[in-house]
């Protein structure tokens, strides 16, 4: 009797789960159909395009002799982009660190300021960098600073949120203890929070540098600056050889940075 009841319960859970699966599956199919309809996306065309595109890439998107002469120009833009990403992330990281101190449970001055800080961080995180880029294009023109500030705002928002979470996770206990010894706010920050949270903070900064290299390519296409611009330029001139060289150089840079930051992460954690 007892067993029977259990069995029935099990079966009902099983069928219920099956139902949820079916429902979710149908939901995804409906969503897919609607999305295809709205965007005029043709699945068959989509699938057909991939082998065509691969063939096209393999035949056209390879560096040729002429494109190697463009290498110095490409490399100088690549270095500029890498330095831009580092500078943006470091500046945004420093600002975000001090700003996040006002937002963590352990170090905020009062809960209201904490809430305002979180709201400001969410605002900067959610306004797309594309908008900043467009806005800054009005006042800064086609300047490296346009890209700098566009990336700065989003990075600042992202890092503020992650730093608040990190600091709350690693250092609320030691903040209490240092406060109890009579240490003041600044001492507590530098003797308690900085050593506890620094490895996580560095890890996040390295991650954002990598992300910003990719983002700055996009901003570059949009604002006609940096590596994104020269890709767009070569591409529109149908100089696919040089364009491919740009892609390859970005890949090498991003993978290089990823490998370095993985090594650093292993040592510091």
């Amino acid at each position, binding site marked *: 009797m007892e067993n029977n009841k259990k069995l029935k319960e099990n079966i009902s859970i099983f069928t219920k789960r099956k139902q949820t699966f079916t429902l979710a599956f149908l939901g*995804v199919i409906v969503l*897919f159909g*609607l*999305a295809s309809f*709205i*965007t*005029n*996306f*043709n699945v068959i065309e*989509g699938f057909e*395009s*991939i082998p*065509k*595109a691969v063939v*096209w*890439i393999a035949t056209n*998107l390879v560096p040729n002799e002429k494109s190697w002469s463009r290498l110095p120009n490409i490399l100088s833009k690549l270095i*500029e982009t890498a*330095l*831009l990403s*580092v*500078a943006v992330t*470091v*500046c945004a990281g420093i600002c975000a660190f001090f700003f996040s101190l006002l937002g963590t449970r352990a170090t905020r001055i009062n809960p209201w300021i904490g809430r305002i800080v979180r709201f400001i961080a*969410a605002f900067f995180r*959610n*306004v*797309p960098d*594309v908008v900043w880029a*467009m*806005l800054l294009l*009005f*006042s*800064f023109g086609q*300047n*490296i*600073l346009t890209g700098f*500030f566009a990336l700065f705002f989003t990075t600042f928002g992202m890092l503020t949120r992650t730093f608040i979470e990190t600091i709350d996770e690693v250092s609320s206990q030691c903040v209490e203890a240092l406060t109890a010894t009579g240490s003041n706010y600044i001492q507590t920050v530098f003797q308690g929070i900085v050593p506890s949270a*620094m*490895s996580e903070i*560095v890890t996040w900064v*390295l991650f954002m540098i990598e992300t910003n*290299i*990719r983002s700055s*390519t*996009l901003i570059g*296409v*949009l604002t006609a600056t940096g590596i*994104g611009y020269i*890709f767009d330029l070569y*591409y529109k001139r149908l100089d696919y050889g040089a364009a491919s060289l740009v892609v390859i150089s*970005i*890949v090498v840079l*991003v*993978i290089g940075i*990823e490998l370095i930051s993985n090594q*650093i992460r292993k*040592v*510091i*954690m």
Partner: protein
Amino acid sequence: MSEIIISSPAPMELDLHKYMHKDRSGKIKIAAKSKSSIAIRLTILVLFVLTVYAFISFDYKNINFAQSVAATWENVKVLFGQPRLTYNSFGGAMHALLVTFSLGVLSTIFGAILAFFGALLCAKNIANPAVSNVIKSLVAFIRAVPTILWVLIFTVAAGLGSVAAVVGLTFHSAAYLIKAYSESIEEMDQGTIEALRASGANFWQIVFQAIFPASLSYMTAWTFLRFEINFTNAIAVGAAAGAGGIGYDLYMAGSFYFDLHELGFITYVVVIAVILLEMLATKIKAKVR
């Protein structure tokens, strides 16, 4: 653990110096000797030097900084203070938002399907190591190419339109999700897989009876996270590659009509949409867990 409590420290004085590490000037050191703190300091130092060098090396083209900042501030006030539509109707903006949303949906669905099979070939605990390495390198390569470049490349290779945008966005989604899915498969209890293998289950039975149910909640969470990213990417790609949707409207307002009011309105639409999506994703993730 047993120790004697020493009540008078006096006789210890001399011995204590034996335990102290001193620097060249004879001062007692206090920091722990750890690789980690050296690496952190070195990393920070290098990043600072690079930042300073970056600011020195940039070509500012004699820009008047103060003037530009002041102008930016004026523009920010117009953008966020006086949003207004002129070239677009509200309905048009909503339709554009829907298009961007749909681009995000399509690339997430394709990305998830590709990534599921990719992850099976990539997860260390079930895949062939050689195949796994090949997939991992491929994923690293795809991720290293910025999304916008994939879309631009496919625009020429497959023609302008939603196909290029979806395929371009799918590339990155798939690569991202392969990494995430395979990590959640790798976290799975090895015993379950072994038990099923011992009972004679074949590969696909193991996949659908053990792996899929066990990692479903993680995979769903990652997929929604990726959907949020795809949505923002679809905006960016729409603006930079003319792939349509609300991103394209942003680009038109900013770079064609030069209308800050319009740009402001569309920005609000985008920000509200992103925040709503984030809230929805949090809810769904909580339900799945």
